[in-house]
């Protein structure tokens, strides 16, 4: 051990200089990230906040300060309320379907040895494809007269269903498409979680009396996947809450407003009706929801069970 390796308590001028250099170095490492954060998130947020407090309209030269009027209008607006409820219904269908469906598929795929990667690719394909293009395919598949789904229903003796134009089925149909799009990604997350469970544990449980798949799932798989499941639930919630593209391409909020969702309404207010100030206020409401989910995520991930 040499003396220079020990923090020099006896030589204040040198150590102060070194501290200073360290601080400068640290700050300059953080600077690019900080600059990006300010430019891409904090600054736009500030502008958004300012806009939400005015009655600015896109293309106008000036705007009036209206205080919280936009927010009180939004809270009282029945269309907005309906779109929030629709969004929540959509989330309520997509989250259980997208999470438990993916878990089931992951467990089945995990059990395959030779064909595993084939199934992984098949289920992951929807994630990599453009939803706009896929939406067209779905529209064709679900078409009441031309689509194979209805042909199948008719062949089975059911009546034909106009999935996307029937008010009672439109939102649920979008949710099914949403689940289809999410399954692959969630499956990959669950597969990673499953692979991290030591095989020894299954063997030990087999000797200890877990004789069937249900016992093994309840004793080992489900509890040990806990952190993964929490993560998947929260990310699926956030993704589902941001539903926009299928609505914009396939239903445009119809039929009879049954598929109007929050993000689509923000888009309408901001880019179709040019009520920029009002859209900004709606965006804040949207952000509030996302924030709640994110906090939930941070919370569950931070206190995730450390085994």
């Amino acid at each position, binding site marked *: 051990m040499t003396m220079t390796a020990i923090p020099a308590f006896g030589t204040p001028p040198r150590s102060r200089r070194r501290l200073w250099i360290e601080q400068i170095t640290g700050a300059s490492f953080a600077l690019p990230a900080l600059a990006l954060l300010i430019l891409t998130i904090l600054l736009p947020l500030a502008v958004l906040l300012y806009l939400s407090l005015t009655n600015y309209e896109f293309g106008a030269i000036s705007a009036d300060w209206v205080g919280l009027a936009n927010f009180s209008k939004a809270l009282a607006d029945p269309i907005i309320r309906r779109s929030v409820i629709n969004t929540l219904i959509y989330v309520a269908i997509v989250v259980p379907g997208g999470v438990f469906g993916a878990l089931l598929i992951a467990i089945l795929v995990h059990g395959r040895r030779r064909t595993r990667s084939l199934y992984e690719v098949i289920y992951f394909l929807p994630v990599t494809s453009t939803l706009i293009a896929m939406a067209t395919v779905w529209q064709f598949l679900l078409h009441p007269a031309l689509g194979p789904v209805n042909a199948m229903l008719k062949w089975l003796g059911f009546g034909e269903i106009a999935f996307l134009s029937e008010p009672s089925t439109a939102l649920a149909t979008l949710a099914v498409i949403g689940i289809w799009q999410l399954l692959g990604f969630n499956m990959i997350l669950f597969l990673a979680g499953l692979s991290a469970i030591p095989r020894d544990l299954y*063997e030990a449980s087999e000797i*200890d009396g*877990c004789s069937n798949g249900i016992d093994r799932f309840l004793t080992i798989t489900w509890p040990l996947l806990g952190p993964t499941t929490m993560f998947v639930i929260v990310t699926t919630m956030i993704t589902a809450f941001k539903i926009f593209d299928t609505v914009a391409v396939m239903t445009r909020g119809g039929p009879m407003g049954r598929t109007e969702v929050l993000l689509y309404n923000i888009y309408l207010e901001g880019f179709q009706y040019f009520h920029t100030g009002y859209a900004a206020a709606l965006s804040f409401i949207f952000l509030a929801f996302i924030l709640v989910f994110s906090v939930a995520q941070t919370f569950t991930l931070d206190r995730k069970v450390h085994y």
Partner: protein
Amino acid sequence: MATVDLTSIAKSFGPTKVLGGVDLSIADGEFLTLVGPSGCGKSTLIRIIAGLEAQDSGGVAIGGASVDHLRAHERRVAMVFQSYALYPHMTVGANIGLPLTMSRMTLRQRLPLLRLLSRQRREILRGIEADVGAVAAQLQLEHLLDRRPAQLSGGQRQRVALGRAMVRSPDVFLMDEPLSNLDAKLRVHMRTELAELHKRLGATFIYVTHDQIEAMTMSDRVAMMDAGDVLQLGTPSELYERPASIKVAQFIGSPAINLLPATLAGSGRIELFGRPLSLAVNGTAGASITLGIRAEALSLAQGEPGQGGRAWFSARLRRKENLGSEYILHFDLAGRDAPGVTTRATAATAATVNETAEVALTFDETACHVFDVGGERLEPRNGGAVSSVVPLRA
């Protein structure tokens, strides 16, 4: 309590043959160790006994009855894994109690929410708790019952794994390298604990290790395995004193046995480095053989080499290894087509040698092991040396 009988167990993984027809009979209450180098199929064999792996052919019987059709948990065996395989999300108490939970409760009584409907549940839980407490007391784990495995030391985890095995009072304990993850000191301590546990429980223990010291110190009998076959089955002293083949001789004992190339002269007399020994075996003249001499049978010659007809050869010291109680001396056999040899020596003897000069090493011919070209043991004729046996030095 039960015997375990294996009849021609064979197993291959794809094209790799892992076990080639193992026959083994383990007595009731016996401590049998499977020992062998890594990859020789020990784990595969013990996993077949446990029911975690299915053999390709052959049969396993426990307590005289075939268990081939039984699932792992129906075989009344318990297993301790090298990794301990404790359930990380359960407390120590729940870990030890899981075998009882699984056997005493129905699925409905174990399910979340639904289990609240069961009236007997509390009573069963109390019974399990009592049994877990009794096992924990035997292993000094009572104060740890509410901890998670991650909060335990290696030795404590090891004891929890033992507890989980003990709680069902199985007929057979299977242990796959249970001490490998412990530090050296704890390992020595746990050897004693396991041997005492075996004595106390009186159950059959089948113990897998690659460490010959564990095999020698704990077992009633040792089965030495290599490349999927049992090379020799016997008590630790049988394996040490009469190894059936060169592989067994090499594997058992530390430092490893000294192997010297030798040849047979006429009438089966052994010639080492051109000098005839008084040792003879059955064999044709001119055949090459291998002479095995344990380190403790080899010593520095006192006085004139060859004195009293004792066999000897010359060597030069390479290195001294101080073990505290004794020295291990490593010698080179200069100019000879043979690897070096090792001997044990007291500190006083070790002080008399150095690297500069050649010394004479002498050995007790009755303690030699003779192996043929194929590595099989050859028995010395007349039960030992032919003539002029000099009494061992004190």
